[in-house]
C-alpha cells in the first residue's frame, strides 16, 4: 500500500482532534475505582474491621490518602501521553504537571514523616508502639491492597486506551492512584488513631499496588 493513500485514508473526514481524552478516560475510571472501594469497605458483610475514627484523625487519613490519589492520578495522566525522557534534557523540560504531581507527592510524604516524628518524639525509650498502634497493621495493609484492586483494573483499562510510552512508570503511577483510592476507602472504617501508624502503614500499603502496577505495566500497557 502506498503511504500517500494511507495518509488520505487517515485524513479523510478526520475532523478536529478529540479533546481532553486523558481526563475523560482516566477520570471516570478512577472515580469508579474509588466508589467501588468505598462500597466494598463500608458494605462488606464479613469485614474484619469494626468502626472508623472521627475528627482530626479521620481528616488526616482522608487528607493524606486523597492527596496521594489526586497527585498520582495527575502523574498517571501525564504518563498516559507519549513521553521520552531523553527529550527532557535535550529539547524541553518535563511537563510542568509531571513536576507538580511529583512535588505534591514528596511534600505529602515529608509532611506525614514530620507529623509522625512529632507525635512520637516524647515517647522515648520505645516509640515503636505508636507505629504498631492497635495491632491492625496487617489487616490495614492487606485491606488497602485488596480495596485498591478495582481501581487498579479500571486504571489499567483507561491507560490501555491511551498512549503511555514509559510503561513501568505509567503502571506505577496508576497503581499508586489505585492505592490512594483503596486507602481512602479503608480510612473511613479504620479504627486506628495514631498518626505514626497512618504515616507508616498507609504509606506501605499504598506502595503495594504501585509496585504491582509497575510490574504489570510493561506487559499490559503495550500498544
Amino acid at each position, binding site marked *: 500500500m502506498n503511504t500517500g493513500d494511507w495518509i488520505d485514508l*487517515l485524513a479523510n473526514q*478526520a475532523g478536529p482532534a478529540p479533546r481532553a481524552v486523558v481526563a475523560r478516560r482516566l477520570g471516570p475510571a478512577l472515580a469508579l475505582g474509588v466508589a467501588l472501594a468505598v462500597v466494598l469497605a463500608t458494605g462488606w458483610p464479613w469485614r474484619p474491621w469494626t468502626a472508623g475514627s472521627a475528627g482530626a484523625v479521620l481528616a488526616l487519613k482522608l487528607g493524606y490518602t486523597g492527596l496521594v490519589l489526586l497527585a498520582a492520578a495527575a502523574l498517571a495522566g501525564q504518563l498516559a501521553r*507519549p513521553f521520552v525522557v531523553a527529550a527532557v534534557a535535550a529539547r524541553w523540560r518535563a511537563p510542568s504537571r509531571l513536576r507538580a504531581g511529583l512535588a505534591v507527592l514528596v511534600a505529602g510524604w515529608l509532611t506525614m514523616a514530620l507529623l509522625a516524628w512529632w507525635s512520637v518524639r516524647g515517647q522515648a525509650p520505645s516509640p515503636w508502639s505508636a507505629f504498631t498502634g492497635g495491632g491492625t497493621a496487617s489487616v490495614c495493609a492487606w485491606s488497602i491492597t485488596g480495596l485498591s484492586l478495582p481501581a487498579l483494573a479500571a486504571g489499567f483499562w483507561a491507560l490501555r486506551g491511551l498512549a503511555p510510552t514509559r510503561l513501568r512508570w505509567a503502571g506505577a503511577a496508576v497503581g499508586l492512584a489505585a492505592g490512594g483510592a483503596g486507602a481512602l476507602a479503608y480510612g473511613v472504617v479504620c479504627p486506628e488513631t495514631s498518626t505514626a501508624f497512618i504515616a507508616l502503614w498507609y504509606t506501605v500499603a499504598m506502595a503495594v499496588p504501585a509496585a504491582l502496577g509497575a510490574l504489570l505495566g510493561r506487559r499490559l500497557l503495550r*500498544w
Partner: protein
Amino acid sequence: MTMPTDDATRGAELASAWQRAQAGDVAAYRAALDMLARRLRAYFSRRMHGAPADVEDLVQETLLALHLQRGTHDPSVPLLAWVHAIARHKWVDALRRYGRREALHEPLDELLESAHPAVEPAPESHHDLQALLGQLSQAQRTAIVHTKLEGLSVAEASARCGQSASALKVNVHRGLKRLAALLRGEGGWM
C-alpha cells in the same frame, strides 16, 4: 546537511499545519501527516537496514498510531517531541517482535549505506488495505469505506448505510484501532 534556518522554517510550517489540523482543518492534517511521514521515513531508515517496504510498514503503522492518539498531544509539548516518543515506542516494539521471529530468517546482509536502494517519494509497504479491511466487522468496514475511502461526510455516509452519525464515528474509530492491532500482529517487516 540542512541549514538550521531551513530546518527551523520547515519545523514552523509543520507546527502551524498541525495546529490547524488539530482544530479540524483536513487539508492541513493531510499536509502535516505528509511532512511527518518524511521525517518518520528518515528516522526508521537510519535504524533498520531493510528494504524500503519494511521501513514503510513502520512508517504507516506509526502514522496510524499518531492519528489514533492525536488527542493525547498536549499543545504545550513540542510536536516533534511527542512524535519522537511514539516513533521510538513503535521502533522498540518492532525490534521486540522481530527478535521473536529472528530465528526464522536469514541474517541481514551488512549493506553499506550507499548500497541501499534509493527511496522513492512515496514507497509501498507490504500492507494490503483490502485484505486488512476484509478482517474488520461489516459495520466497521462500511464506516471506513464510506467516510475514509469514498470521502463521504458523516451525514452522507449515515444516510447511505443506515448507521447513526455517532455509531458511524465509533465504528470508524474502532475499525482503525482494529487495523492498528492487525498491523502489529502481522508484524509487516521481515
